[in-house]
């Protein structure tokens, strides 16, 4: 029997607000334990939460980017459970009334563009972190993370393969980073993903029994874990067994999913509306205000780049992967009006230099206008491709303008026949043997003379002109 995987993903994205969702504490990562823990974070008696409206604004951005319906009246609930990293004994989250529902994102797969549904987007607070001391039977609590704003994005069970899941995740990631509402760092946990996966015989409507996968902290691991789990479930089903509904952890080192240890307790979170918070009223005006600040999103940008600049899908993909890179590229194009050449330079030499230094495009020492100017000079024939490479590297090192570099180093190409002719005559006169051999039929020696001319001019001679003159003089 042929089985079809059914996958749904739950993504938690940490929002990039300065302060936490219900108090004024900083959200900065890496501070000493409990440096960002006030009475609100500590869950002290009598302390009340006050909603950070920036969190709502960011979530509205994501809702707009994913074509969701924004609930004009949405609200917070309490999810009740005991754990030492949860100071109040409940997590403030959205339950019955999430911020946004019923959206989708478009994912480009090998089979073409697919729509993956978004069931809901809601806001919630993060919990703290436990630090276990291995030497003693004691644990410590760091509440810096408690109250850091999270956004949960729940997909519909529309995903049909591990590859599609990874593509969907990349898509969400890209949108979040483009919107500048999440830094997308998976290792530090600011972009986390859990997956629900089940198999059903192809053609059947109802879903099979699902497992929940956790602990996949990279795109690659999501794909590997899903591939493994799909295969595992397939084997279970093919052997006539039944999939056990459970939570499984991905073990990166062994490349397997394992049932979470300990018997899973059936949690009853006793959700109810949080009486300390009022309904979040999202007015049409507010949504419009947010909409005006929305940047062009990656997929739209990619399509526009291909259309407007005539570059390949691959190039458009690379150039739009990062919003700042795309902006940089467009500035270069504006300056030189050579979109394809600009794409080659940005993706080639520039990205190589940046990658070598692990530098972000935002810290690029070459202003886009300089790169544009260099491309312009190259197109004019004022400099050779080789010189352009040198100039590019020097611009990168010094941040100087191409014209300054050319002037400083006397790099302007020799395009004047009256200057080049005596040099070529001297080269020929200095190599009578080679001349004789060339004239005797060893045409390969043409390259030797080009090299000598280049050497004599320190590479400044225009290659086309060298060719022209050499052909004339060597033939005699």
């Amino acid at each position, binding site marked *: 029997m042929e089985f079809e995987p059914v996958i749904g993903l739950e993504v938690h994205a940490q929002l990039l607000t300065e302060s936490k969702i219900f108090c004024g504490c900083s959200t900065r990562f890496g501070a000493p334990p409990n440096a960002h823990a006030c*009475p609100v974070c*500590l*869950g*002290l*008696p*009598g*302390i*009340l*939460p*006050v*909603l950070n409206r920036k969190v709502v604004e960011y979530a509205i951005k994501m809702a707009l980017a994913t074509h969701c319906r924004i609930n004009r009246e949405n609200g917070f609930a*309490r999810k*009740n459970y*005991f754990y*030492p990293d949860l*100071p*109040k*004994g*409940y997590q403030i989250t959205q339950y019955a009334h999430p911020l946004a529902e019923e959206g989708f994102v478009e994912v480009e797969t090998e089979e073409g563009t697919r729509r993956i549904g978004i069931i809901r987007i809601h806001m919630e607070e993060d919990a703290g972190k436990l630090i276990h001391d291995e030497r003693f039977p004691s644990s410590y*609590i760091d509440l810096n993370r408690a109250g850091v704003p999270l956004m949960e994005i729940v997909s519909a069970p529309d995903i049909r393969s591990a590859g599609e899941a990874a593509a969907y995740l990349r898509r969400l990631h890209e949108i979040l980073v483009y919107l500048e509402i999440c830094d997308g760092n998976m290792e530090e946990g600011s972009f986390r993903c859990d997956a629900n996966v089940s198999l059903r015989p192809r053609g059947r409507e109802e879903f099979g029994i699902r497992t929940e996968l956790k602990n996949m902290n990279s795109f690659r691991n999501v794909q590997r874990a899903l591939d493994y789990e799909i295969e595992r479930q397939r084997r279970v089903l093919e052997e006539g067994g039944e999939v056990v509904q459970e939570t499984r952890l991905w073990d990166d080192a062994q490349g397997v999913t394992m049932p979470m240890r300990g018997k899973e307790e059936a949690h*009853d979170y*006793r*959700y*109810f509306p949080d*009486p*300390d*918070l*009022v309904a979040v009223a999202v007015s049409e005006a507010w949504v419009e205000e947010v909409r005006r600040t929305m940047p062009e999103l990656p997929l739209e940008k990619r399509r526009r780049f291909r259309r407007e600049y005539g570059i390949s899908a691959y190039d458009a993909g690379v150039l739009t992967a990062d919003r700042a890179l795309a902006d940089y590229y467009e500035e270069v194009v504006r300056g030189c009006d050579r979109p394809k050449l600009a794409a080659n330079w940005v993706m080639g030499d520039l990205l190589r230099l940046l990658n070598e230094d692990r530098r972000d495009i935002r810290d690029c020492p070459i202003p886009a206008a300089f790169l544009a100017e260099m491309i312009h000079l190259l197109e004019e024939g004022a400099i050779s491709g080789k010189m352009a490479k040198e100039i590019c590297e020097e611009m990168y090192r010094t941040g100087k303008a191409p014209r300054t570099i050319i002037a400083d180093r006397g790099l302007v190409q020799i395009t004047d026949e009256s200057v080049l002719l005596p040099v070529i005559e001297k080269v020929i006169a200095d190599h009578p043997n080679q001349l004789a051999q060339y004239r005797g039929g060893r045409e390969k020696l043409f390259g030797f003379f080009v090299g000598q001319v280049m050497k004599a001019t320190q590479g400044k001679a225009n290659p086309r002109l060298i060719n022209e003159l050499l052909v004339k003089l060597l033939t005699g």
Partner: protein
Amino acid sequence: MELHALTIHELQDKLRAGETTAADILASVCRRIDAVEDKVHAYITLTREAAELQAAAADAAIRRGEMEALTGMPIALKDILCTRGVPTTCGSRILADFVPPYDATVVEKLRAAGAVLVGKTNLDEFAMGSSTETSYFGATRNPWDLDRIPGGSSGGSAAAVAADECVAALGSDTGGSIRQPAALCGVVGMKPTYGRVSRFGLVAFASSLDQVGPLTKDVEDAAILMNVIAGHDPREATSATVEVPDYRSFLNRGVAGLRIGVPREYFLAGIDPEVRVAVEAALGVLEAGGARLVEISLPHTEYCLAVYCIVAPAEACSNLARYDGVRYGFRAPEGRDLLDMYKQSRSAGFGAEVKRRIVIGTYVLSSGYYEAYYKQASRVRALIRRDFDQAFTRCDVIATPTSPTAAFRIGERIDDPLKMYLSDILTISANLAGIPGITVPCGFTAGGLPMGLQFLAGAFQEGLLIQAGAAYETLAATGPLIARRKRERMPLD
């Protein structure tokens, strides 16, 4: 009369006239505490040294000519209001050693208004009770009869005001916890509109019902305290932004033309005949004073207690989850593992009534029961609110008894939760509807116990309550009556 027996406005007049000092007033209150506290047990913590400094500061301010609304006034705080550097126990073992690093907003406001904070008053554990018997620190007694309860949960505040152990106090009211003890102790108590007074720093019992309010010797003092504590607080999301009027401006408006609604459902079975007669007499006095009595109906009254017994414990079980022995408060030392530590700490840290409500609250929120209990209660709550909206189209204020009976004996209802919950049957509706209520003394039973008359008004109409309450006080000459009764009958001297 001794200074401790006076009201805020009387003492302020004396301070202004230079007839006394804040230090003298505090000394008088402290002497009174020394004399009667053993019998009453109104306080959990006394902050005499800090109070002396505050009184000295008040006198210095007076000398500079800087009189604030409460300069030099010895005021007590229910021990559920957080006080920076002073233990805030909520009457519970689990918080017996808890010292907040912050003041509640109302406490900040009292300090800014020049108040002298004398101490933290006793209460039912986490404000859950109607008798101040469930406190980990022992019961408070009714100053009018030491064998009886003072009401609750703000019983310590009510008893302290009645026994002149402070000039006024703050309490909190979730289902009647200011009004019922005020009525049973013969003082004035007001529960403001939900959102009118900040809840920041009020340790939560049931967040959608809790409200801080004053317990005072007369209505004018209630108006003075309301002027200080009411207003928007950016630290509370549910705080109202409605403008605060000068509540004292309502004091002398009388009741001529005022439409007083009398809801028939509040005079039915379960009301002690003496209470009923006293309230009917009070209505007569008001009518004679020019008020128009309007018979009204609040048809969902019979469901108030049931709704309250679901909503309040549901919120409470969640609000009290933070007392887990992990970060602060009582932790049982012998826990084997995390779960065991939780169980032991909470088992030993909470008293029986708190545990009862945690269990009820957990039950009504559980999956499978949520719809039938919590959700249904929320729906009925909306109907109760609508009852009041409709009623207030026909009247300006509503008058009812405050408590169905006068003070009962200590121990009388402690083993009968349902009977205990009935103590709040007439006050709960205001919390459920979020509207303000006030109780003013309206006479004594044959046995010499005070009784209260409750007025309710629409949201943010505290001014009407002050108006009606003050008018009744004047018409019935309550002040002199209580003063005489205190001299003759209060078993403290």
